[in-house]
């Protein structure tokens, strides 16, 4: 035992690695589509974007603060780019576009520089000169008679995003209602590691604190911020709630047993179980998810029951008597542990990394705690016989317990009523949205959405995804898709789209553009001829001709060479490594006819239409179904194992009826009160089943003899109250999944005990 413990501690100290990625609570992706979806969900979660909004002051004060804050933050090297208004790096982009316009353009340059093409272009240039609004146009006029730079700019903006550009007041961004001033931060540092994310968020917070005037409200949003917040919340929850739970449990057990030694002995198996469980998860999975840790410790909290049962009912001054009693309690307890473990085995089958971790954690923890309680505890316990404490409460509960059986019918009735509620209530029973897995509060998520809308994020969630051998291949594919998509815009199916090849055409296409401008002399002749109809100065376009002549010497752009340029950063989210090859994303704006896009995607082999929201809902639904299936499987296994244990086909029902009635009743209460069941609720229900089986097993033992009745009954209610204390405390958590678990198990434990008492046979007296 000591060796195992030492090894476990060693593993924890050398390998401790906590992750916060919620993707771990989704099933392992199987199809290419699911893998792409996972990639999007995962990478979305760690995107280095932080949005800030300040409100609560008059607009001049807000603008002043915004400027002061961003100036201060810009001094730091941590951030790639901080934007709070006017074009910061636009000159960089403009000169890039100016330099590479003929390689990047989407226009056919042979047409552009034909005589009719030039005539129409010169007409447009002349119109621009007439306008009092054409400053940029004037700037590029001499170099760009065909307007390639302006066209590129138009494409770079995207038709939809332009409408959503934030307004500017006093030189900085504001929301449309002028209540909030906005800042967008792109983090340059590597934020795949949690500690880096925390450092980044901490730096922003401390900068804010340094310059923040009174009365200013700050909203901070973005995946990085949310990840840090939820990690901090969970950490605080672990600290505060576990302190609180331990305190309450210690107080309660000291009251019930009047012995500090008993308290220590009660907690000891749990502590050892948790240490061994943490170590084994680290060994098997290399890292442990923070929710696994919290949830696992809580689930393993059931292990407090084991010493309670053994120490309450199993101890005696007489050594032989004690061995006998311990053996008897152990027989029941063993069955309970076994069936609980079976229940948790459903996690292992669930197919999500997070739940598998959880299953491993709980099973290892419980087995360790049970074995420790049985084989080590009796040797270090003090053998004064059954402890006494809270005897008044015990007496009253005993009276209640004995009369509970009168309400036997309630158990069956509730089984029916709950099933009816679940089947016929109008509230949705299952929470299938991917948000249900998120440790972020709804309100914070809404704030994030608000800021995204303020700043004008792409928020449609509709995209086409394609995979190919390499990035060049993806670029060629998007170029092939482009005319079809243009037709779809024409047909009103969607408003616009962004794709990688808008920003970087394939090498092949760039060479083609070069080819199209090869005959400089004939281009010059065309230009001279076209100019005859226009009042332009004769040599006004000489700089353009110079550039075309120099085009031969301009290297085509490739993806690798663009990595740290503005264009490379734009390409990142649209074009990325995927499995052995590469994948590309085409963002769709303003989709009006999904079926038409579906058909469009079907025509091309390697293209998938993906709606982030419904696709992830499907993924969650898949996992919920899988959990549900595992639950049915484990119920069957429990029944079989109980039948074998009792050597009877009917006796297991005695145990199982109150347990399942309790679980269904909890589910019905949750659904009825407007909490559709998330995966976390389902898992908790599984725990309720595990606990309920325990209670039912022990209640079932009661009639055997009156002496045992007393101690067994006490061990049951002490266990129940301990569990309710632990999970009641958990329901105070700030993290939605933990709150859900606490609520479900807290209520579930209570109902399980009551139902088990009602269903159990009354002792003959």
């Amino acid at each position: 035992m000591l060796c195992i413990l030492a090894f476990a501690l060693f593993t924890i100290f050398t390998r401790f690695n906590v992750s916060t990625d919620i993707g771990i609570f989704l099933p392992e992706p199987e199809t290419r589509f699911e893998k792409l979806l996972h990639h999007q969900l995962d990478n979305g979660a760690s995107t280095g974007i932080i949005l800030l909004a300040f409100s609560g002051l008059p607009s001049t004060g807000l603008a002043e603060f915004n400027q002061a804050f961003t100036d201060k933050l810009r001094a730091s090297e941590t951030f790639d780019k901080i934007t709070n208004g006017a074009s910061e790096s636009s000159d960089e982009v403009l000169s890039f576009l100016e330099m590479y316009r003929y390689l990047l353009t989407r226009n056919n340059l042979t047409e552009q520089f034909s005589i009719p093409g030039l005539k129409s272009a010169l007409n447009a240039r002349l119109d621009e000169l007439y306008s009092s609004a054409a400053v940029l146009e004037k700037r590029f006029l001499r170099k760009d008679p065909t307007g390639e730079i302006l066209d590129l700019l138009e494409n770079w903006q995207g038709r939809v995003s332009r409408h959503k550009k934030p307004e500017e007041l006093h030189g900085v961004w504001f929301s449309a209602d002028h209540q909030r001033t906005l800042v967008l931060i792109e983090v340059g540092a590597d934020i795949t590691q949690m500690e880096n994310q925390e450092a980044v968020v901490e730096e922003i917070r401390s900068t804010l604190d340094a310059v923040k005037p009174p009365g200013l409200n700050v909203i901070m949003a973005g995946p990085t911020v949310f990840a840090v917040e939820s990690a901090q919340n969970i950490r605080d929850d672990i600290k505060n709630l576990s302190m609180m739970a331990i305190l309450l449990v210690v107080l309660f057990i000291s009251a019930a047993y009047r012995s500090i030694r008993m308290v220590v002995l009660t907690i000891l198996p749990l502590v050892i179980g948790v240490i061994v469980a943490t170590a084994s998860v680290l060994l098997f999975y290399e890292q442990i998810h923070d929710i696994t840790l919290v949830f696992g410790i809580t689930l393993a909290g059931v292990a407090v029951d084991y010493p309670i049962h053994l120490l309450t009912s199993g101890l005696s001054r007489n050594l032989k008597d004690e061995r006998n009693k311990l053996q008897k309690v152990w027989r029941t307890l063993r069955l309970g542990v076994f069936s609980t473990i079976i229940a948790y085995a459903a996690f292992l089958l669930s197919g999500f990394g997070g739940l598998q971790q959880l299953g491993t954690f709980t099973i290892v923890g419980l087995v360790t705690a049970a074995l420790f309680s049985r084989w080590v505890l009796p040797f270090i316990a003090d053998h004064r016989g059954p402890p006494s404490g809270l005897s008044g409460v015990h007496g009253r509960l005993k009276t209640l317990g004995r009369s509970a059986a009168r309400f036997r019918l309630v158990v069956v009735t509730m089984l029916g009523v709950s099933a009816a509620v679940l089947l016929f209530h109008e509230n949705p029973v299952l929470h299938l949205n991917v948000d249900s897995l998120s440790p972020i509060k709804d309100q914070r998520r809404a704030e994030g959405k608000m800021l995204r809308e303020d700043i004008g994020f792409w928020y449609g969630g509709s995209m086409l995804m394609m995979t190919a051998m390499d990035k060049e291949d993806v670029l060629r594919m998007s170029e092939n898709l482009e005319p079809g998509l243009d037709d779809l815009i024409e047909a009103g199916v969607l408003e616009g789209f962004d794709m990688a090849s808008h920003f970087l055409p394939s090498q092949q296409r760039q060479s083609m553009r070069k080819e199209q401008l090869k005959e400089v002399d004939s281009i010059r002749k065309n230009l001279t001829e076209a100019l005859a109809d226009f009042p332009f100065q004769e040599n006004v376009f000489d700089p353009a001709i110079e550039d075309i002549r120099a085009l031969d010497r301009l290297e085509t752009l490739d993806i690798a060479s663009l990595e740290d340029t503005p264009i490379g950063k734009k390409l990142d989210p649209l074009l990325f490594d995927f499995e052995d090859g590469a994948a590309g994303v085409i963002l769709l704006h303003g989709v009006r006819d999904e079926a038409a896009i579906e058909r469009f995607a079907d025509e091309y082999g390697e293209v998938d239409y993906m709606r982030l929201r419904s696709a992830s809902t499907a993924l969650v639904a898949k996992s919920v179904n899988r959990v549900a299936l595992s639950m049915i499987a484990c119920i069957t296994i429990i029944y079989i194992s109980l039948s074998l244990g009792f050597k009877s086909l009917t006796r297991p029902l005695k145990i199982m009826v109150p347990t399942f009635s309790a679980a269904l009743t909890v589910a019905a209460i949750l659904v009825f009160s407007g909490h559709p069941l998330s995966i976390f609720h389902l898992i908790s229900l599984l725990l309720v089943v595990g606990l309920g089986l325990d209670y039912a097993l022990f209640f079932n033992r009661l009639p055997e003899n009156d002496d045992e009745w007393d101690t067994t009954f006490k061990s049951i209610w002490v266990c129940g109250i301990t569990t309710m204390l632990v999970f009641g405390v958990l329901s105070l958590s700030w993290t939605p999944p933990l709150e859900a678990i606490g609520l479900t198990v807290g209520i579930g434990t209570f109902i399980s005990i009551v139902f088990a008492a009602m269903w159990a046979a009354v002792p003959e007296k």
Partner: protein
Amino acid sequence: MRQQKHGLTVLSLRLALEVREHSALPVRILLLFLFLAVPPAAIADGQTWDVSGLMHRFSGIVHAKLVFRETRNSAFIVTDLVTTGSIEYRRPDYIEKNVVSPIAEKIVIAGDYVSIEKVVHQRKGEDVVQIQKYPVQSHPVLATAVASLRAILDGDETLIRQDFEIELEGSRADWQLNLIPDNPEILKYFDRITLHGSDARIRKIVSVLADGDQSMLELTYQLLQPTNP
């Protein structure tokens, strides 16, 4: 273990950011402001002939409509660029410049917003009308320009003098009012603005742009509704 992180949603955001306004809106507004300095019409006989007297007249206009003919020269073009259209002012804060020939373009300042409506030639398909709207406060220069404009319409001489030097020359029959910017932001766009008038009417406005191009605006009144005729 993890792959390099990309933010899908970041993309269009970045696009929106970097391409922001290169269109130098303030210039348009300043030009517009010149046209609008126009409504001041009648300079009554017997009144003192000085800047304040002129300003006082400016403040009396409730509603004005004019047609204009603008001649501009440009280093890129051998001939002059001539546009025609109309200007309308309604107290307290509606100002519209409507170009009808040879291109169509309408600029309106109303309340806290400036909007620009123009016909855009699509490479594929038909021409579309594009309307862009900006808050006046969106850029310091724009805000200054609109403030100056409104100062003139209100006859607030002090306010105008914050950004311009004002000179009045010539006789009542042939006067000229020079506005010389001393705000460096405005100097980026304009060297000098001159209003020419004779007796009660402004005949033309000449502005010299910072890049050397010149604009001349000739005006004809269609409607003038002063508060104190």
